[in-house]
């Protein structure tokens, strides 16, 4: 049986570049199913992303798309929404992209309660850019920038955006893919800033490369796997 949501993908851009076992594809298919459920007209929707593994979403999804700079997806999306409020605007970000480099944009989009749906793919690490820790890396976990373990406390993303003023906050995982679709639908139908944290596994960078105790081993591991 042909999956009807496949029409939302740019077939000429597939196959994707994500690592084996990456959860990003599950999040993307959950998103496409959500669009199908809502019968979204592709011409009336805009998808914006920043930089990182998650931000490849704008390459694969066949909508009006904007692939922008690291951490600034929400700033671009704010401009789009202000210029054309009738458009449905979705933003794909990663945990580093949204809470470190783009942390300021995240809290102010929350405070403004702008009608944008942000899907934050949280794999607890900067994947594409080299395995550095992000503000969502759990305390004690290793990263290329914390080879002996993270000493900082991590954010609770949902509490962070709730505290900053977001009016719809949800969390799903790649295991609970059907629920993730429903959460994206609910977020998109909400009038205001909606944040959906999509927890997603990263078996290559998060759990293979960064368990190394020495940064150069991690670096060589990443180079070997051609993730750069």
């Amino acid at each position, binding site marked *: 049986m042909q999956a009807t949501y496949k029409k939302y993908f740019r077939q000429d851009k597939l196959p994707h570049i994500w690592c084996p076992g990456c959860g990003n594809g599950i999040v993307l298919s959950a998103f496409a199913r959500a669009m199908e459920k809502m019968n979204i007209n592709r011409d009336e929707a805009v998808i914006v992303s920043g930089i990182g593994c998650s931000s490849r979403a704008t390459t694969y999804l066949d909508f009006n798309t904007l692939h922008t700079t690291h951490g600034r997806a929400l700033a671009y999306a704010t401009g789009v929404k202000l210029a054309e409020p009738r458009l449905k605007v979705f933003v794909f970000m990663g945990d580093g992209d949204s809470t470190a480099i783009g942390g300021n944009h995240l809290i102010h989009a929350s405070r403004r309660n702008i009608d944008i749906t942000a899907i934050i793919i949280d794999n607890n690490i900067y994947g594409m850019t080299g395995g550095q820790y992000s503000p969502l890396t759990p305390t004690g976990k290793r990263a290329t920038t914390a080879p002996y373990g993270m000493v900082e406390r991590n954010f609770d993303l*949902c509490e962070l955006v709730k505290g900053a003023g977001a009016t719809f906050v949800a969390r799903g995982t790649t295991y609970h893919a059907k629920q993730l679709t429903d959460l994206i639908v609910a977020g998109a139908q909400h009038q*205001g800033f909606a944040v959906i944290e999509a927890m997603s596994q990263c*078996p290559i960078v998060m*759990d293979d490369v960064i368990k190394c105790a020495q940064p150069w081993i991690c670096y060589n591991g990443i180079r070997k796997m051609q993730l750069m």
Partner: protein
Amino acid sequence: MRTALDMLQWYKENAVNVKAAAKMTEEALKEKFLIGELYRAEAPEYTAAYDQLIARVQGGGKIR
């Protein structure tokens, strides 16, 4: 190395739906994380507020 399957299994075993969590003890929720719709509220939306401001100013209304 944990596999993708191990990581999905971890999500399965440690995620608790927010509705189910309401009936669980603090002890049972220790080390777990919540999934589902965690928060919803109503507040003025930014672009709508901006449009109202523009209409008021262009309509000769006073800016407070």
